[in-house]
């Protein structure tokens, strides 16, 4: 597993305490699992995503990730309607490990309250928090 100094937590993203990331793309928010989460889970073998059109509140479970170690749930970083899902993950769940911020994205949300983005952590805050748990 990676040392904290080896983690890739890009500056332009916001992070939840459960290690989802969120990226503002104009008026939409793209969501995935951060480098720490994919590394801790290990090889991911299955991702269950919602349907486009589903609506969730911030903090609600919207996806399930299964690795050889464990099954984990993913929580909405901001509330809103799912406008697209990454169907490639169905055939190639390993994309989450290979490219957590690129091809391994999960969903794009049309946020009901874009200001919820401000409640999320910056990469620095996320890193500080991880150092605290060491």
């Amino acid at each position, binding site marked *: 597993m990676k040392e904290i100094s080896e983690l890739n937590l890009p500056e332009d993203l916001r992070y939840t305490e459960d290690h989802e990331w969120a990226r503002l793309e104009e008026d939409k928010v793209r969501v995935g699992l951060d480098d720490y989460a994919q590394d801790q889970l290990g090889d991911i073998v299955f991702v269950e995503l919602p349907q486009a059109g589903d609506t969730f509140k911030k903090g609600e479970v919207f996806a399930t990730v299964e690795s*050889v*170690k*464990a099954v984990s749930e993913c929580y909405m970083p901001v509330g809103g309607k799912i406008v697209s899902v990454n169907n490639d993950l169905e055939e190639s769940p390993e994309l989450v490990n290979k490219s957590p911020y690129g091809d391994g994205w999960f969903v794009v949300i049309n946020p009901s309250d874009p200001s919820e983005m401000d409640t999320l952590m910056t990469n620095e805050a996320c890193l500080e928090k991880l150092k605290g748990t060491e």
Partner: protein
Amino acid sequence: MKENVGATGLILNEPLLWEKGRKGRCGFSLPRRDVESFPIDNELAGEGPDFPDLSEVDVVRHYTRLSQWNFGVDTGMYPLGSCTMKYSPKTNEKQAGLSGFTGAHPLLPSDLSQGTLRMMFELEQYLAEITGMDAVTLQPAAGAHGELTGMLTIHAYHKNRGAQRSKILVPDTAHGTNPATATLCNYRSIQVKSNEQGILSTESVADVMDEETAGIMLTNPNTLGLFEDNTKEIAEIIHSKGGLVYCDGANLNAVMGIVKMGEIGVDVMHLNLHKTFSTPHGGGGPGSGPVCVKKHLEPFLPVPRIVEEKGNYSLSDNYPESIGKVQAFHGNVGVMIKAYSYIRSMGPKDLKMASRLAVLNANYIKESLKGTLHLAYDRPCMHECVFSDDKQKDDHVTTLDMAKRLMDYGFHPPTVYFPLVVHGAIMVEPTETESKEDIDKFIEAFKSIADEAKEAPDLLHNAPGKCKVRRLDEVSAARKPCLTG
């Protein structure tokens, strides 16, 4: 003997029977035909199934070799946490093999199956006594089925009062099947966090319990192997809001006949006969998951119920509020006979002693290994203890590596990466079966694995080295499963 029990040996490869078969080979001979031959209906004729042609010795060697690749509790220590892999005494098999039982057909009328019905009736009474509950059903086929049956009685209870509820409390240390069961009963699971001591606090339950909540699903002892000290107070909170307490009894082996669950506020619980009551399990069963309830839930138990009148046993469907039948015929009767045999051969005193020894063994392992492995919660445990790979982090060795290496030492690995609340969990449940000598060997094995992690970590990364197959590619197996031969 200082030597490890793990050793390499002559383990024979074995092809599939289809590769082994040769046309015309045969393992039996039919007697000479003594009736006229008669053509069969065309509709019934056709190609037969693709069975290989084999001799008797081909078949016997095939299955004997496969059995030699196996590891079970008859082979060695099997400390699989949360599973209670205790030894299954052979006398249980003998009783279950009695011709009166094996010859009985489930459709026999009651007056021709008095023995089987009596065994079941008495087993229900024993289980009620052991748990301190009032009534029992033996129908459920296994643990998760028992959970569902138990939760259906809670659902029926609220429905019967004319006030169905929508939520159920489930602690974060619960078995994964609990929220699934709740969902099947149309309840939404509300997670309750365990405290820093690894158990539920009364406050965290009081915070979320309300009159829309049907009750709580408690596992006691919980999946961290810890006794839920506050059960009685938690039950009072739940009851005061009109809810019910379901107890997952999968971990009963720690408290068999010692804790009267009915007296600490539990309304309904399931048991796993295939864990606590020494009936064989693994490989998919069969199991048996009886449900024990307090008086107020008895009307909802599945039918038919076994009733006794003046020494006569019969099946009765006359329970109008019952949730109905949950399993074909009477449930897994063979498993019940083995549990009955276990309870009768142990007796009340020794059942309690078995639990005490199970708890003692787990605490002995916990204390002996806590300098070697990180101990998740440093407090007295029940029948199992949970470590993690935290101390091995700097050696870049994980729980999985240590578990695989343990096989080279001749032990079945413990449960790993469960419960989820402990990162990199290693969950050890020795059960009462193991002698001190065997437990000491297990402890020594773990200690030398921790040394190897420092000195020769690759031994662990490449483990197992002595088993018939080496590290399996679990990732490809999960991502690209091949389900045919």
